[in-house]
């Protein structure tokens, strides 16, 4: 059942991906910018041999429909073409930039979940108390302050003045990056048995996680709080209390289970969003991730990279939504895969 459901969802993703690629392709062709400027650089534009070699190599002499069909066929083989800007296969670029983003996304999600759910429950249970109001204020602040601003302020306070946090980057600049296995510096350092590297990588994750995760935390907190307030008024809670269950068992054993359904939706979407790369946070913290890569691609109209990156992000959403749907079934037996 589950397998067929997953398979069907994945097959449905294919026409969606094709649609996205077609839209992107058409936009690029409407914009009418000469990709040669980017491919060969300003100076070499005057050298016909170099320009001709580039035109042949990138297939720019062929009609648009032919370029698109070639693109789709290559895409189906997992080949997204070469980036105009980096001259490397887009897939290689995405593989190179994704781990930094993934590491930050995972740590932000963990931070937001571990802090957000208990705080949300606290705020919900102590509804309208002083704790609730101050948490509400903090989460509002978190959600409304722009990350490039808080990022710079945090760096100035915690790094520059107090010296308790490291500067930007993923690792102490005097250290060499661990050998790439997963691309996640924390995991790779442990696998290499490099304790100092692990500590440094974790340390460097702190500030960007606070900033990026803080945003998601605010979201999680508010959703949890609202759901808890709603659930705590229900009959089954009264029943549970009536049975003599402790307040803690009532919340964790009964209310939380129902709170998880809206929460999983929010967390899924937030995670897909985090994986798409947080441009501002990545820029402030010199985090070499997907967000920075894609912005650079967009600014330079590097369309194979834009297309590949957009399709990858679309894929994140498809997969995350699918996982969320599966989790629904586990959390709520009434939901089944029809």
């Amino acid at each position, binding site marked *: 059942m589950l397998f067929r459901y997953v398979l069907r969802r994945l097959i449905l993703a294919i026409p969606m991906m094709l649609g996205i690629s077609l839209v992107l392709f058409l936009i690029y062709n409407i914009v009418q910018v000469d990709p040669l400027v980017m491919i060969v650089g300003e100076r070499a534009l005057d050298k016909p041999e170099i320009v001709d070699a580039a035109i042949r190599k990138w297939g720019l002499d062929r009609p648009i429909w032919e370029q698109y069909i070639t693109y789709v066929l290559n895409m189906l083989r997992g080949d997204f073409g070469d980036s105009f800007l980096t001259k490397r296969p887009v897939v290689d670029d995405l593989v190179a930039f994704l781990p930094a983003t993934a590491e930050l996304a995972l740590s932000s999600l963990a931070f937001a979940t571990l802090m957000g759910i208990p705080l949300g429950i606290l705020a919900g249970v102590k509804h309208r108390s002083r704790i609730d109001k101050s948490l509400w204020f903090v989460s509002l602040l978190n959600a409304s302050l722009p990350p490039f601003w808080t990022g710079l302020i945090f760096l100035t306070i915690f790094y520059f003045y107090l010296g308790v946090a490291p500067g930007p980057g993923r690792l102490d600049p005097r250290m060499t990056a661990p050998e790439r296995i997963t691309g996640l510096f924390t995991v790779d350092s442990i696998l290499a048995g490099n304790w100092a590297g692990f500590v440094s990588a*974790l340390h460097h994750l702190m500030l960007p996680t606070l900033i990026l995760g803080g945003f998601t935390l605010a979201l999680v907190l508010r959703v949890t709080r609202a759901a808890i307030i709603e659930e705590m008024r229900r009959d089954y809670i009264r029943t549970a209390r009536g049975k003599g269950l402790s307040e803690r068992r009532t919340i964790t054993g009964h209310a939380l289970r129902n709170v998880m359904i809206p929460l999983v939706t929010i967390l899924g979407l937030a995670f897909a969003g985090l994986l798409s790369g947080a441009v501002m946070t990545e820029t402030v913290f*010199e985090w070499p991730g997907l967000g920075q890569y894609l912005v650079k691609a967009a600014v330079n109209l590097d369309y194979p990279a834009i297309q590949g990156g957009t399709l990858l992000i679309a894929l994140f959403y498809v997969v995350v939504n699918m996982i969320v749907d599966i989790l629904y079934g586990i959390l709520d037996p009434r939901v089944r895969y029809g």
Partner: protein
Amino acid sequence: MSKHNKRYLSYLWVLLAIVVLSISAVGAQDESPLIVATQIDDVITLDPARSFETTNLTVQHATYDTLLEIRSDDLNTIMPGLAQSWEVSDDGLVYTFRLYEGTTFASGNPLTAEDVRFSWTRLKNIKGNPSFYVDAVASVEATDELTVTVTLSAPTPAFATIVTAPALSVLDSVLAKEHGATDAEDADVTDTANDWLTQNSAGSGPFILTSWTPLGEITMVRNDNYWRGPATLSGVTLRQSSDATTSLQLLERGDVDIYEDIDKDLAAQVQANADLQLVSGQTLNLTYLAISPDAKFELPLSDALVRQAIAKSIDYDGIINGLLSGYADRPPVILPLGVAGSDPSKRYERDVEGAKSLLAEAGFPDGFEMTIYAGQSSSAGIPNETLAAKIQADLAEVGITASIDLRPNTDFLTAYRAQELPFLFATWTPDYLDPSMWSDYFSYPDSGPAARILLNLPELAEIATQAAAESDPAAREALYVQYQDLHVAQASFVPLFQPQQLYAMGSNVQGFVYHPVYSMDFYAMSKS
């Protein structure tokens, strides 16, 4: 407070403790290389035959050697590098280089004439962006183990200067071939060494490239086998740092040793700090106005008097002192200060009244309307928006009403190249230091910025050709002075400024000297 809430609170305290503990944990440090905060986001590849950006020049200078060198202390003298001597045949077509004996690559392989032949032939056949350096080369031969003979297709006095360019670095052919390099005719499709050469170097230079993380860092370690003797620094790391304030914080906290291309606004702050030093270097970059003389735009700009009036209306000193805090020079047209033949007197001076009377003479006493085009980027750190507004204000003083049209850089370059922009400003950066690096591009109706603004002036093209082909240095300089006179009268290219590049560094860094092509020479540097 109820028992349950206490439990929740203690849970939160544990979480908080974890956060605080990880914040205060400090990573251990190993033997410390020189760390430079800079912008490495221009890097596409570090293969000398394929790269054509800026950061790669610094890295290649550190990891490879060239046959000849131009050093910072004298930009007009060519010094021996891997070649101890070189000769040019009387017809200027055959260059013979004699290599030093006993030089080796970092790998330990001996460096021979065959490696030079391989590297230069490969550069040509890869047909990459820097391949035009060797356009004039018909053949390269290894006459014997230590002699390289190059035959050119036309006399090119600039060739010895071109040989100093990092693109003509000598690769360890044995090592490079192991990783897919080839110098075959079809190297543009068969050479597969790019990926390897982007993460490693195959050179004889004082450092060895060990990694490149795009948008992250470039790391190099000392080559203990360096043929001139090992460097003092144990290694060099160039790390991406795009925010000016953060870069300075990194420097002040000692997490980086050098901050390259520091914001001119922050210069005073560096000078006020006793632990830091500020070093400025004269670049050979030129930010210029380009004014098309072509009639197709139906603008008064096709009249030389109007262009001269514009050249007289610009407040050059105001731009340099007001916008660049004085960290720039005023270059002549169109050869920057420091290049052979550059004559500082061949430039424009501000003269508002003179400009007005020229406009009146041309028949536009009340001025006219036009548009200033530029890319949405910056020139020597000044946002182009600001520079455009300054030019707009200067033009308004002589009665010219200009609007501003800034476009994304790629769009701007596309339109510039398509000869659609009659009035714009942009920056020209050189790849090597011969005056032909400028005259080849600012003189001919089919090349470079001259072509893009439809400048077609046969006298200018002719003298540029003569000067580029002249092999007697004194006669060549004289021709370039005449060349600049023609430019001054034409007023199609109006240089605005030649920026200085500022470096902030810890006072413990020694031996830093700026070079206009590769900017830093780590071999000469040390850290105490």
